[in-house]
């Protein structure tokens, strides 16, 4: 089993990876038995490992609790990355402005001296320094309009400022997302589809509702959707066939019996038993009002035309006409009640 090896042994050693590579070894003829092969491989392997260990143990080490700690040199073998290189965050609009103007960030304290109470209060949060609700009096200025509530105005102003800030923040993040440098914990999600036709946003339909829509439409067909062509994967409707409700066969005949109620309501509608329910109040009211108006008009006319002749001498034509019409109608409030 003649093996060829380079006498000066230039192995490729990468201490950063604890890697050693011997590119000069070869098996001109495979060893006869497996054991021999294994032994040969182990021998070569141990030589390489020894080589790495030589360089490793000669590195400067610091003493630690568990043992000597060694700082590994950076690796020399190049391996592909698993994720792309992170892009640096682009400066926000404020940061660009600040750089141009030379504005430097100033470190703020967590507590601020409050003149009003004479204590140190938080800058923000519970019980803070310049809280809106702590202002007792706002002096009126010449520029103030009379009907405006200054406290409400302050709150509105603050809300507007907060909204503006949120809008700016969103714009900054969108800009970062455009170049692919969105911070890892932030996600931008579209909340609504772009508005195309009507201004109303599309109503959110639940999953169950969507599943039932086809079934609901099926009941409007004559056969209750039994012979409709179904799409592959479509589940059968929950309530198949026509939706019909039948009364129970056996039931008490007291006040609550449904069959009695059913027949009673039908009959009442036909015979108009409870005619006060049948009264069309709106129509009656308009009729009464019209009558009254005409009466008033005629009175004025009569007064205008001839003051001497009284109403009593004038023929009462209108009353007759009106009563004739009223009989044919659904019934009036005065006449219909007697029964």
């Amino acid at each position, binding site marked *: 089993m003649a093996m060829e090896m380079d006498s000066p042994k230039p192995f490729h050693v990468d201490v950063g*990876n*604890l*890697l*050693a*590579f*011997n*590119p000069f*070894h*070869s*098996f001109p003829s*495979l060893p006869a038995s*497996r054991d021999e*092969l*294994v032994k*040969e*491989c*182990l021998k*070569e*392997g*141990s030589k*390489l*490992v*020894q080589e*790495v*260990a*030589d360089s*490793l*143990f*000669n590195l400067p080490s610091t003493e*630690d609790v*568990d*043992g*000597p*700690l*060694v*700082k*590994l040199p950076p*690796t020399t*073998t*190049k*391996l*592909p*990355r*698993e*994720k*792309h*290189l*992170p892009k640096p965050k682009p400066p926000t609009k404020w940061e660009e402005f600040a750089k141009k103007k030379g504005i430097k960030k100033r470190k703020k304290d967590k507590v601020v001296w409050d003149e009003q109470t004479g204590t140190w209060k938080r800058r923000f949060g519970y019980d803070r320094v310049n809280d809106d609700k702590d202002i007792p009096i706002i002096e009126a200025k010449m520029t103030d309009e009379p009907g405006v509530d200054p406290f409400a105005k302050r709150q509105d102003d603050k809300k507007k400022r907060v909204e503006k800030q949120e809008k700016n*923040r*969103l714009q900054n*993040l*969108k800009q970062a997302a455009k170049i692919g440098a969105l911070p*890892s*914990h*932030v*996600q*931008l*999600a*579209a*909340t609504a589809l772009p508005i195309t036709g009507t201004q109303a946003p599309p109503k959110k339909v639940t999953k169950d509702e969507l599943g039932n829509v086809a079934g609901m439409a099926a009941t409007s067909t004559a056969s209750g959707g039994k012979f409709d062509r179904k799409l592959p994967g479509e589940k059968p409707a929950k309530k198949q066939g026509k939706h019909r409700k039948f009364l129970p066969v056996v039931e008490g005949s007291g006040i609550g019996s449904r069959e009695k109620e059913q027949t009673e309501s039908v009959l009442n509608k036909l015979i108009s038993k409870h005619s006060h329910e049948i009264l069309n109040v709106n129509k009656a009211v308009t009729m009464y009002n019209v009558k009254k108006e005409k009466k008033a008009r005629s009175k004025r006319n009569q007064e205008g035309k001839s003051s001497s002749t009284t109403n009593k001498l004038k023929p009462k034509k209108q009353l007759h006409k009106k009563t004739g019409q009223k009989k044919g109608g659904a019934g009036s409030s005065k006449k219909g009640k007697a029964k």
Partner: protein
Amino acid sequence: MMKIKTPRSGRVRRALEKRAPKLVETGKKTLILQGTKTSGTLNEVLSEIYHLKKGGAVRFTRKNDNIRPFESGGETSLEFFSLKTDCSIFVYGSHSKKRPNNLVLGRMYDHHVYDLVEVGVENFKSIESFTYDKKMAPRVGSKPFVAFVGEGFENVDELKHLKEVLLDLLRGEVVENINLAGLDRAYVCTAISSNKVYLTHCALRLKKSGSVVPRMELVEVGPSMDLVVRRHRLPNEGLRKEAMKTAKDQPKKKIKNVSSDAIEGTIGKIYIPDQKVGDVALPNKAKGVKRERREAKKKEANERASKKQKEESE
């Protein structure tokens, strides 16, 4: 209309930041899964690879019919799993008559398939079949030595690719400092022929030798197998260039109060806070101290008296 979604709890934020791309990468997680049919040996191989990489590996035990790494459409499931488990190397095992005991080792870049190597496993010996002194057994998660032997790894394309993939798979976490007492395992890969590699896992025994460097002795403990290279797919050139990009070395983190000058070299500023001499408690009330103070007071009084006299006289 866009909405900004940020995690509401610190735990979720930390998990997201762990998965974010980093400038310097530390070790890839491995995904071990299987195809429609596996053999007994293949099951053992997969579970032992999982044991070897316990800290940074995910094992799926169900069969996946729709994964075919070498076909164009059969990678979507793999990419989805890689995205969800945040794994960038996968080991996919399957068994068929044409390719018995097949292992596909693959890597991902940005959760898309980067390159693949298909090997067949022969002459597999599991951990149980080795007898050794149990005290030497390597511990989980220790950084291994990796040794490649053979000119095949240099000359044959497929073996060169396999060497790269095996290095990526077998090396542990990329660390800056390492404890020399914790070195206890080594992987030896020998190129037996132009398409066969003998891979074995050994425990290290450090023996006393004359110098600082101990003598290394390898004892076979772990699984050993013959890998026969069947197919492989190299990454396309553009993708390879992008994946090999490294960030330029960052300027060292700025140390506070230290600045460097061209002429004078490194300059440091030391800020000494005001000493509150009056507030410092005296350590001992020894009689001698009291006497000193008495004498000092007397001296002061004399000085003041003399000053007053001077003023009066002037």
